[in-house]
């Protein structure tokens, strides 16, 4: 992993189209500004992981199907 140190209001470029800026840094929280082409999907990692995990759970827990008729 590449590790860079940036101060508030400094940025990094990823390629020539994606810019990530440090907006604020306080109490262990970093506020980032992201400028990227609209076709680049940006999500918090935990959201992304929660969906992957949910999808995997949804494929394996198909038990008790006859019960579904009641609902």
């Amino acid at each position, binding site marked *: 992993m590449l590790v860079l140190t940036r101060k508030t209001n400094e940025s990094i470029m990823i390629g020539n189209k994606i810019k990530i800026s440090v907006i604020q840094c306080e109490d262990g929280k970093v506020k980032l500004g992201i400028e990227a082409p*609209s*076709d680049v*999907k940006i*999500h918090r990692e935990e*959201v*992304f992981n*929660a*969906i*992957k*995990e*949910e*999808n*995997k*759970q*949804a*494929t394996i*827990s*198909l*038990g*008790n*199907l*006859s*019960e*579904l*008729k009641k*609902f």
Partner: protein
Amino acid sequence: MIIETKYFGEMEIDSNKIITFPEGILGLEALKKYMIFEMHENPKFQWLQSLDQAEICFLLVNPWDFLKGYEMDISDEELESINVESIEQIAVYNIVTLAEDIAKSTVNFLAPLIVNAHTKVAAQIVLREDKYHTKHPIFSKEGDASC
């Protein structure tokens, strides 16, 4: 063509109805081809069966059958990714996670599946709405009333 399914054994399907997820479903990116089957016992549910891996099968619902005010903001890029030209082409499904106690099952309203009903190209998208998450109780008391 004949396919192998998780719950119904071998089935004959119409290959025109095969749904393609060019980017797969999150966490299952390698699987691209699926088929949707109606659940005869309860028309509110559908099966999404993988054609690439027979043991992969999801239970789907139409969100508005369970949450009348469900809202989704789909970006132009997401619409383009499934070649949608008009909004009427889109079918929306959400994946259900069945719990051992079925009454405690949940539905993922955060990441719906959008399907171009004409071209059968589909994608799982992630909504930016803060009000949705991956585990909404599907058979809540309010839900029962609307079923």
